[in-house]
């Protein structure tokens, strides 16, 4: 893997290429629609470019990007303006679609979970973070992360009936 400048602002295209899936996937999981995820994605990398921060290593940079994504997504989803408006077109609020029907079913099941369970499940299985990293990111105890993962898995198993779900 090519070494990227640890100071924010340099090599932006390479950094976006490397982390766009991470940031966009988390934003999509948190917001639930592509329009808001697009906004969050742009805001996160603009904030990264302007912060002028120097990171210790890639893990530090990834953690910063994920934490900033969560914050930006929360800002978008919890704004009173957003809560009191209705999208003009259905396309704006259209559900995220994947290529395979199984993928769509897993996504729908994931989105049906409450946010407390959805984010740990996404970070653990999609981003492959440890429970300790997730705990730091979400500012909760590792035990709470494990509990949420257990309960989130149970709910997913119930929704997916074990077809696409194996331990």
């Amino acid at each position: 893997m090519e070494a990227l400048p640890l100071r924010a602002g340099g090599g932006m295209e390479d950094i976006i290429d490397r982390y766009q899936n991470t940031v966009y996937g988390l934003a999509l999981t948190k917001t639930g629609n592509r329009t808001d995820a697009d906004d969050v994605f742009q805001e996160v990398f603009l904030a990264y470019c302007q912060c002028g921060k120097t990171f210790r290593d890639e893990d530090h940079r990834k953690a910063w990007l994920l934490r900033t994504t969560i914050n930006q997504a929360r800002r978008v989803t919890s704004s009173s303006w957003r809560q009191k408006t209705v999208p003009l077109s259905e396309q704006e609020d259209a559900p995220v679609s994947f290529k395979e029907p199984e993928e769509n079913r897993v996504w729908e099941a994931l989105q049906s979970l409450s946010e407390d369970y959805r984010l740990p499940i996404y970070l653990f299985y999609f981003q492959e973070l440890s429970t300790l990293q997730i705990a730091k990111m979400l500012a909760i105890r590792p035990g709470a992360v494990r509990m949420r993962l257990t309960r989130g898995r149970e709910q997913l198993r119930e929704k997916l009936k074990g077809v696409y779900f194996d331990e």
Partner: protein
Amino acid sequence: MNKELLDSMQKQMIPSPEVREALSKKLARPVKKRTVPWMKYGVVAACAALVIGGFLASGMSQKYTVIVRSLQRPPIEAPLHSYVTVEGLGEIIQENTAALTGGGDTGAPNTGDLPGGEMAPSGALVPEGDIAAQEEAVAVYQKLMDHFDGYYPRWYGGAYIDRSGYLVVQLVEEQDPGDKTLELQVLDWTESSQVMFSSCKYSLAHLNQLMDQLNRIPTTHPYDAEYFAGWGIDEACNRIEVTLTEADPTALSILASLDPDDDAIYVQVGQRASADVALGEDVRTDSAGTEDPAVHHVMPGGATVPDDKDLIAEEPWSDGARYDLEKLPEELPQQKQPIFEVQSVPEEDIP
């Protein structure tokens, strides 16, 4: 979970090319310095000035100050009453000694209200002087009280019997010294030559009024009442004596508010019943040399002055009988021994 499925999904979670292009354009723009929202700050400052101006104009500031002062315990600006610490200094407590010795250093009995008790009659305990003269003075005092009938005039500052057996009637200083009307009136009421007059600052009615306010402290200041061990009027000294368990600033500020001139109330801080050796031989003392107070005040912590006899502390002892030497019994009783005798030698070692 199915890792291939999740990887496939993750790969599809990418922004559209349009979004990526828009981001690249935004990043290519020179970074603008965040403008200072002066307009916003100005509006906030104007609102704050409006609120403060309205607050001051409506007179709420005075009410607010009163509330804040009432919340402060003790108030910072409140003056504190002076006090005397008697604990550990060997000083005689005035109120107890007055009741037993006939007035302490002034030679007059304390005839004021004792906490929790009735008015003590003047001369009730007068160990010195001519008994007949003192009895006459007590009778004169009763005559005077009969004329007052419980309502003291403004000129009357109290009365006490001095060592020589005279009834000393105190007149408030406000009266004209040259005006002998009151003295003649008192002499007329009492019909006795055993009466003397002296001047004082406060009337007994005023002191009684202060006593009423002190009696209301447990209800008006329930949190501070625990510091007040006792209070009563000392007519000879023309003041109220208050005993505090400790020099609490709040209690002292309450007393200062009742006594702005700081001379109507005499505050003692420390335990009562501490007078012992300095009282003299005629003072009724117990075996431990401590005076038995006229009123048993509650000490800090709720304990009263203990009784003389502590039965638990007495060692049990078998008392022998007394015998007539001429009629001695055939067998003498055993020698006195404590009931609880320790056997230092084990039984098996005794031959």
